């Protein structure tokens, strides 16, 4: 009897899980559009490459912020470490981009794991301070180790070899394809992770850590794991940036990187993976337009967007989608 009951329950759970993790048609549409954009705007490869990288970066933050509820003010630490690792390794004769990517990921993962124990202690405030502190320390280190990182001048003369036989061209076509493919692959992995029992346990922790612990979720271990995963993703994004632009400077570790990525995730909405991707797109276009209008003071408008977004409610995209859905559904009008 009991075994039968358990079996039914398990079947129900599996069914629920399959339904929740099934691909929605809009998701297919999204990726088709992404692929189409590659061929539709051949003159915009450089911009799109950057968007893809920022999208991956925000995806990494969404994993820890949207799913585990950990606020980080220093996510740029991992991004920057990835960028510098990928850059420095070419100085030692390792020019293959994929090996560089692997090394950068390893470095960022190691840093993520090492700092997670600190960053996950205490309250939100402590986390803010520690994450910010880690990023600042890394910035200082990169600044001081001038012989290795080029200091304030940035890492000059990176020599990145061809990727699987394709040389990086100046129009960024190869770079863009490279970044988009890496983004897509990592997105698939992230999607798998957040729809796994592991991912659901993260959401339980985010919503109520005490209850999650009470039903037997190892809160600390899960947080460490997802923080490390997020760090690894950010490291990949940083490495992509360094490899495709053949340059890394202190800018990749600066505070505004951490703030920008928070903004991107916020614009798109946290906790459903696509938020970061959409946010990166909106953010980059907005930044491009604004910095053309007011090269020096565009920060003001970015700040204004943040303030308005918070005061007006961060779920604007969700509400817009609901509105569109209601309008397009036949016979939905009351």
């Amino acid at each position, binding site marked *: 009897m009991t075994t039968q009951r358990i079996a039914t329950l398990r079947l129900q759970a599996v069914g629920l899980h399959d339904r929740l993790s099934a691909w929605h048609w809009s998701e297919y549409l999204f990726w088709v559009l992404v692929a189409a954009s590659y061929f539709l705007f051949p003159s915009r490869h450089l911009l799109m490459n950057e968007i893809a990288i920022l999208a991956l970066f925000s995806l990494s933050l969404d994993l820890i912020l949207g799913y585990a509820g950990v606020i980080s003010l220093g996510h740029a630490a991992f991004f920057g470490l990835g960028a510098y690792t990928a850059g420095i390794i070419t100085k030692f004769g390792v020019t293959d981009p994929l090996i560089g990517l692997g090394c950068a990921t390893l470095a960022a993962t190691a840093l993520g794991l090492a700092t997670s124990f600190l960053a996950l202690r*205490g*309250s939100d*405030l402590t986390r803010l*301070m520690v994450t910010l*502190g880690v990023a*600042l320390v890394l910035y200082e280190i990169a600044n*001081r180790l001038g012989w290795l990182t080029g200091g304030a001048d940035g890492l000059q003369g990176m020599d990145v070899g061809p990727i699987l036989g394709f040389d990086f061209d100046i129009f960024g076509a190869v770079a863009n394809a490279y970044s988009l493919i890496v983004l897509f692959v990592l997105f698939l992995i992230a999607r798998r992770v957040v729809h796994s029992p592991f991912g659901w346990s993260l959401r339980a922790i985010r919503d109520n850590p005490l209850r999650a612990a009470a039903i037997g979720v190892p809160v600390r271990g899960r947080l460490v794991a997802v923080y490390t995963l997020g760090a690894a993703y950010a490291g990949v994004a940083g490495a992509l940036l360094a490899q495709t632009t053949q340059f890394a400077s202190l800018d990749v570790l600066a505070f505004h990187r951490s*703030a920008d990525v928070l903004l991107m995730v916020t614009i798109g909405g946290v906790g459903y993976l696509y938020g970061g991707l959409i946010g990166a797109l909106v953010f980059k276009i907005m930044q491009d337009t604004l910095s053309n209008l007011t090269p020096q003071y565009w920060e003001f408008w970015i700040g204004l967007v*943040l303030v308005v977004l918070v005061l007006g409610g961060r779920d604007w995209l969700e509400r817009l989608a609901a509105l569109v859905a209601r309008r397009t559904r036949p016979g939905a009008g009351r």
Partner: protein
Amino acid sequence: MLTNLFDGFAYGMLLFVLACGLAVTLGLMNLVNLAHGAFAMAGGYVCMILVNRHGVPFFAGLPIAFIVCAALGVVAERLLYTHIYRRSHLDQVLFCIGLIFMVDAVVDYFQGPQQQFINIPDFLKDRFEFLGVSVGAYRLLIIGVCGLIAVSLQLVLTRTRFGSRLRAAVDDRRVARGMGINVDLVFMLTFAVGSGLAGLGGALGAEILGLDPTFPLKYMIYFLIVVTVGGTASITGPFLASLLLGVADVAGKYYIPDFGAFVIYTVMILVLIWRPQGLFGRVATR
């Protein structure tokens, strides 16, 4: 050695005046006001403009900076912050970052991105020997003013009716409200005083900390350290944390200049490993 201790002491006192407002707002309303530094910067600029461009005496500029920033604090509290008290910490952080970006750009637009200096009276630039310690007159002034502020804050907090209301509200907002304490009013006043003190600190500290549009970002980490290490349960916690931070920072920059900037982070990490909830008492976790 003693000179460094003295300088660090002055620096720490300054940090305390700058950050104590943040500690109280955090303890009282659980508001992570990362934009606290913006008030300090505002104070610095108000004082600079008055003293340098309009010939107001330096010692008149300081109280004016306090008053202007307190007024700014009230306006900001009523217009902006009141909307985000009940929001999540993420919302508060985003809001404050947005605010910092805006303030940065505005100050940059009107005053330019360069470092500003306040013309302090000549006699404050002196250094003299006292019992073998080289004492800077300006730093002595800072210690005097900040010490006075710290003592009066402590007295107000422990000896007056307002202080007991404030402490009650910090301990439990709902019960305090139930007892008939007008928590919103208490909070508005506290916010105003906190912002005013930040402004005063910014004006007083422009000589030591520098003054430019990036000020709120540059010192954000210092304020955060003071508050997390010191806790929000009392005034003494942040005070001691500020002194520790000030002395560690100055000593680090002097004795091991190559690692100067890392010393405070090392201290911070050690403290966190040792006492995750801060050195002194509790940190707001609600």
